[in-house]
């Protein structure tokens, strides 16, 4: 299990390859990558991600450990960036390795659902028209009830 909270960009290919390396007992590897999008007006300049150093690492490790306990997993990887990102930049990735794909898929979804609303990150969108904190969505909170 590896948790990385970092400002620097990560290389999706390098990370996925390193994670898959030596996963002989794990026939299934799922990766998910979150990308900064510019949905509305096309004028998003910067996405600023604030976090709570210390609590962030603890919360991510607890979420990853819970996934390891619930599903039959060989390994879990979580990388989440903070600081200033531009549209198209990769914000975060999770990867799960498991003997069977159902566990790998479900655990990856679980990780995403939980780190969306239980890991202390806050996104601020800065555009030509101003700066605004991204509000948490009710559906993100609702997503937790299915687990």
């Amino acid at each position, binding site marked *: 299990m590896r948790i990385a909270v970092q400002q620097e960009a990560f290389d999706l290919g390098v990370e996925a390859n390193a994670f898959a390396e030596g996963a002989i007992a794990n026939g299934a590897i799922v990766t998910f990558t979150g990308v900064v999008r510019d949905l509305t007006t096309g004028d998003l300049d910067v996405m600023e991600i604030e976090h*709570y150093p*210390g609590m962030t690492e603890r919360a991510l490790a607890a979420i990853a450990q819970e996934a390891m306990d619930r599903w039959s997993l060989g390994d879990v990887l979580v990388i989440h960036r903070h600081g200033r990102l531009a549209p198209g930049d990769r914000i975060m990735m999770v990867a799960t390795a498991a003997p069977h794909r159902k566990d790998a898929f479900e655990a990856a979804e679980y990780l995403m659902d939980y780190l969306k*609303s*239980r890991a202390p990150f806050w996104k601020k969108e800065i555009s030509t028209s101003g700066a605004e904190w991204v*509000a948490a969505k009710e559906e993100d909170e609702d997503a937790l009830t299915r687990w």
Partner: protein
Amino acid sequence: MDVLYFAWVRERIGLPKEKIVTEAATVSDLVAELSAREDRYAAAFADLSALRVALDQELSDFDAPLNGVREVAFFPPMTGG
């Protein structure tokens, strides 16, 4: 104890962190004490349903006791991922 603020709570109060000496028994008591200090605190704490609190880096709630707590953090609902 250390009191930390994040995201718009930090912006509204105007600082990321401060040391507070308090006799507050619960998080709600601390919120009431801070709100009574200055308008910027009252504005930040106006709607507690829009806020979350962590005690010693674990999510908690506003009824929780502060006994033995070293670090309190206030912030809006999280938006990771």
